[in-house]
């Protein structure tokens, strides 16, 4: 085993310092070292998106990042999406539309959808489906997820520009 490395990062708007082995992925660090179990391990090779997080605002798979690589970076996990009180509109719309069953893929979808809406507040259905192609769901058939994202986007636009 190689020596552990000291890493400091901003995780969900909070400065965190932790020790990790170079071989530990960011996903392992989040779940096993920091106790942030929202990001899930699905395939562990970049195909399923269950571990999606934002790294300096960019959507990435935490299983394909080493923990040591985030030194000095800003990481947002699903735990950092909701405001202090209540839920993020995406989270609320996933519940309203029943856009989940087993829920394992849901944190990844929420984080990925937030990354989309941060860039494109008014995506088409096609753009939503294309953006979320790196997230796999074996329960819903995707339609409810896509509707939830489109509905959340509409609500967030309406709140930004009250008529």
């Amino acid at each position, binding site marked *: 085993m190689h020596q552990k490395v000291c890493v400091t990062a901003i995780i969900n708007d909070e400065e965190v310092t932790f020790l990790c082995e170079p071989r530990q992925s960011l996903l392992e660090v989040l779940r096993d070292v920091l106790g942030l179990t929202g990001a899930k391990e699905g395939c562990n090779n970049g195909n399923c998106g269950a571990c999606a997080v934002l790294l300096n605002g960019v959507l990435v*798979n935490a299983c394909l990042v080493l923990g040591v690589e985030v030194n000095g970076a800003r990481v947002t996990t699903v735990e950092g999406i909701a405001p202090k009180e209540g839920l993020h509109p995406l989270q609320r719309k996933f519940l309203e539309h029943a856009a989940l069953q087993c829920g394992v893929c849901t944190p990844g979808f929420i984080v990925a959808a937030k990354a989309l809406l941060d860039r494109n507040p008014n995506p088409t259905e096609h753009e939503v489906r294309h953006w979320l192609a790196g997230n796999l769901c074996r329960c819903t058939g995707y339609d409810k997820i896509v509707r939830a994202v489109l509905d959340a986007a509409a609500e967030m636009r309406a709140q930004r520009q009250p008529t």
Partner: protein
Amino acid sequence: MQSFSYVAARTLAEATAILAREGDQAKCLSGGTDLIVFLREGRRRASVVVDVKGIPELNQLSYHPQAGLTIGAAVPCHRIYSDPEVTAHYPGLIDAVALIGGIAIQGRATLGGNVCTASPAGDAIPALIAHQAVCVVASPEGTRELPIEQFFRGPGQTVLGTGELLVALKLPPPRPRMGAAYLRFTPRNEMDIAVASAGVAVALSEDKAHFTHARLALGAVAPTPLFVPQAGEALINQPVSEAAVEAAARAAQAAARPITDVRGTAEQRRHLAYVLTKRALWRAIERARTDGKERENGKLERGG
């Protein structure tokens, strides 16, 4: 995962010194979308992982109308297709980097990583060959440059020697009335690996009736990405016509030497080399025609 030490290199000298000292046991990490999977699955061994993302030369992304485009090896796909100048001038490259993996992969995966993984199906490579990319390689002794079509030795194998590091890719400025395109065949549009692919670049005469320049490369039909100079030669000085495109596509098909594997049969891949070449050529021709018009309009507007 196997255990290794980690160094975040800050300079080319630091990185190449480690690579020279550790040899095969040192692996370069940029986006990690291939390397971390390879290490986890035991397909590569490393005693030290050298993170090269922090080296300034590997992060440059600059375009000048005379000098062309320089893309650092550690620039991720999303930075390339978010750059309006690269998008305007290198459409074949944009086609490729915008369909590697999915959005989360493109946020991390780098152009240099795609080249150094040296998959026969690497999406960026046929497009880079079509755009006449040159590889800039550093070692403790200095730097050397070579055309990208000479960079590959076999599946997963490059010409990089001990102590050598891919620094950047340099693409010449676009020619007048130039168009390029990259197309692949996959069962799924996203998150898939090419069964076969074609990257092409063409330039047209002033009246846009003849080819003045053409380059073509194929992916996933040979042990390495395959430059097919005879397909380009079949087009140069020929009229822009179905017959000329057909001849180039037949030349590409004849050059393909595919295998049968889990993704497709050799027969299917030979067919795809022909079909994808034709479709990519027509897309590039269309871009060459309309880009030319857009540039003229731009000139008129600026002149007025």
